[in-house]
């Protein structure tokens, strides 16, 4: 049962990982960060990623179960993938048994990174992070 810091360090061991963070998407707060972030400012990146996560979480087109609760065992949206010219951003929602709005954010170099592997691993990490 790892804590936030162990979880982030584990994410950084993925091939191509540039940086990672645990972020609250309601407030935009970075609860933990490791490595680099685009522009070098983790707090700003967290606030921007939170906006993206919030839109996905709140719009019916992406979160189809309208009455689903984001703090139950399964989130209506599992993850978001942004691909740009040289990197991927992977946002993985973290289900908790208490009321929360948390996701893991992994920034991955496109050449060295393996998106499929990162998706699987990040999902496992999100589950282990809150294992009771």
């Amino acid at each position, binding site marked *: 049962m790892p804590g936030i810091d162990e979880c982030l360090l584990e994410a950084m061991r993925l091939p191509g990982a540039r940086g990672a963070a645990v972020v609250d998407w309601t407030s935009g*707060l970075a609860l933990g960060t490791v490595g680099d972030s685009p522009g070098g400012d983790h707090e700003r990146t967290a606030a921007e990623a939170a906006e993206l996560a919030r839109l996905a979480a*709140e719009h019916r087109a992406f979160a189809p179960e309208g009455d689903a609760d984001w703090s139950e065992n399964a989130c209506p949206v599992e993850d978001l993938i942004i691909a740009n010219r040289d990197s991927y951003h992977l946002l993985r929602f973290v289900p908790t048994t208490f009321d929360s709005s948390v996701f893991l954010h992994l920034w991955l170099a496109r050449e060295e990174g393996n998106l499929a592997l990162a998706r699987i691993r990040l999902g496992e990490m999100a589950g282990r992070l809150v294992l009771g």
Partner: protein
Amino acid sequence: MTTVRMPSPPPLPLRQRAQIPSAGLSPMLDRLAGERATGVLMREGGMLYLSEGQVVYAESPATPGLDALLITRGTLDADGWREAVAQAGARQRVGRFLVDSGRIGEGALELCHLGALYDAAYFVLGPSSAPVHFRYGEAHWLGPVHPVPVAALERETVRRRELLHGIWPDPATDEAPLVRAARPAKLTVTPRQSAVLDRIDGVRTAADISRALGRPAFHTLVDVRRLAAAGVIAPSGVGGGRPSAEPAGGGTSPAPTEPTLPHADPHITLLKRLRDALEAL
């Protein structure tokens, strides 16, 4: 040719602007961080516990505490929590005890604890002119879970004020009992917002709703300001009858009739909201 002289319109009433102090939330807190102090800082809005200059716990009457967040949604049962406090409270190791006894995962405790800490600190560090006290040496019963530097906490608190201000500049809905609009605009309400909306009864404040939901109070304020901006809800004091009794706590009974905004005409409501928003800028 006739000239019609228009009388100049009466001046609009001016309201106090929302104040966002940019830095220096608490000079005393900065000094205590500098000297790596241990103890409890008591301000009008609540308390911050420091350990060697870092914040280890925050509590405020405006927010549900860590225990409420964990118990309300069933992550922990109340007996398990009481047992942990009884077993490990005296030696300030409740957090460690909860994890070691398998009641909660380390990551889950850290996430909930940090959420509660930043949430309470937002209210503790709110504007206040009341005297501030610090008691040296006092440790919190939870024990260290995930200490936060004072500078990070202050930065986040200022950012949160700006976030709320950006959503809707009028802070009136933060503390007042809330009412629903009589004829709200058509709006898609998110699941988290509808949980808030369902509990609005003309008596409950945002803080009461947070306690009922077991949700950090700042999270409720974000949704409340969004709903206020959309004209779906309003503070109940606006030009109408304020409920006579203040809510006594989480368990107050809802009002029998649902009070609504005094202005039933949606156009007038819209104009008033526009005026309020412009004044608050």
